[in-house]
């Protein structure tokens, strides 16, 4: 039944679906506590089965995490953006939804210091385990 079809809007909590178009990709800002739920719906109800990329940007007053999702059947794309506290950035892990998030979340943790709660093995990946600091932060001081 057409009337029962789930739309993008239904995947977001009330009134939160306000996409901005950035070079053809709908970017949606959502609060951190809504991420797990939105991802669950986008994946299981709307077929956003492919997690292309996770990255984080240090905006100096906050840390922004960006997820690039693709629906491989319809080739539709969407990006989710979440603002986190600059000092203690914590967000739910999406590894239980997309296994491809595993290494990507570890990389973001390693280089930007974002903690993904619920990640099965959140350890440093590119840097040695005893490294101090998060190099992609803007206030990181490069050691001699």
């Amino acid at each position, binding site marked *: 039944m057409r009337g029962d079809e789930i739309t993008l809007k239904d995947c977001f909590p009330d009134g939160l679906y306000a996409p901005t178009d950035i*070079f053809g990709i709908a970017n949606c800002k959502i609060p951190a506590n809504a991420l797990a739920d939105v991802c669950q719906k986008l994946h299981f109800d709307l077929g956003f089965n*492919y997690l*292309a990329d996770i990255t984080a*940007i240090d905006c100096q007053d906050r840390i922004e995490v960006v997820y*690039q999702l693709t629906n*491989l059947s319809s080739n539709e794309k969407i990006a989710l953006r979440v603002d986190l506290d600059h000092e203690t950035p914590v967000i739910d892990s999406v590894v239980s939804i997309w*296994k*491809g998030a595993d290494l*990507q979340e570890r990389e973001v943790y390693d280089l930007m210091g974002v903690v993904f709660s619920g990640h099965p093995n959140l350890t440093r990946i590119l840097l040695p385990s005893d490294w101090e600091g998060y190099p992609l932060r803007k206030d990181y001081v490069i050691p001699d």
Partner: protein
Amino acid sequence: MSSQIKTDLIEINMGPQHPSTHGVLRLDVTLDGEVVVDCKPDVGYLHRGVEKLAEMRSWVQFIPITDRLDYLASMLNNAAYVGAVEKLGQIEVPERAEYIRVIMMELQRVASHLVFFGTMALDLGATTPFLYAFREREDVLDLFEMVCGGRLTYNYFRPGGVSRDLPAGFYEKCKAYIKKQREKLSEYDDLFTNNQIFIARTRDVGVISAADAINYSLSGPSLRGSGVAYDVRAADPYSIYDRFDWQVVTREIGDSLSRFLVRVDEIKQSLSIVEQALEAVPEGELKCRTLPRMKLPEGQIYYHIESARGDLGVYIVSDGGEKPYRLKWRAPSFINLGALNSMVKGWKVADVVAILGSLDVVLGEVDR
């Protein structure tokens, strides 16, 4: 006496210096007898902090650094980065430059797949195909050398074009190469692809289903080997790929042999694209006024292309200045490596080599 034999699991290291790991990759493999129960890739040996380096260099100065990521496909790295800069800066590319770029990108894909073909054979104990593949790859490197002087790191793409025009004699030499490569491909098939030992080592080994491959965010030939027809050149056409007649190659089974055959067939498709592009290169200006201190407007962009290893993404944040505010490199090798554990579980140690080989990772790109 108990009839049960007590066995312990043992943990072994493969790498970081091991010929089958294609660079400095360490695999922490847990074995039950000869059977793999767990395999943890340990990466980062080549980490150079490329994303941080980008923040300290001008837009143009970062191009030679991209050469050093996936060093078997530097042209494609150039293309991904420069493509993102052009889209964000709304920089026009002349027609002639677009065609030259496609020729370079597809020749690069062929060269990269030839290395894959040779090293995969070498991993499985066949030395000769490696020499054959490298012999032909040499011709591609000669073509690149003619065009830009480099054989491995090219620094050839510029925002708004390429650094130099095609030199005299390029068409003839490139056409001769395509003809020769096509003949050699059937020779490869006789020598290696149809070899019973090779087939026994790879058929049904390390199978990953389409659903799992997607869930693990696999991309490139490794994803298409599981029957998913996702190729950025077709799904999200960039440059001028929509003008050529070519097909997305897939195989259904998702085993190591499928991933191998996808790449062999992609060589044929790429040769055909190069041939079509050579016929159609328009005359015209190749003007490329790249300012060393160019500025890009404030904004962000996620841009991706199909590299030899998969979906190569570049995320750029610009604050309107002369340098990137933030640059993220979505390296297909890195993400493809994430699926390795699930693919090797239950297989023997010797199969780990075949399965890892079939993923075709390049550590320069994994570690960045």
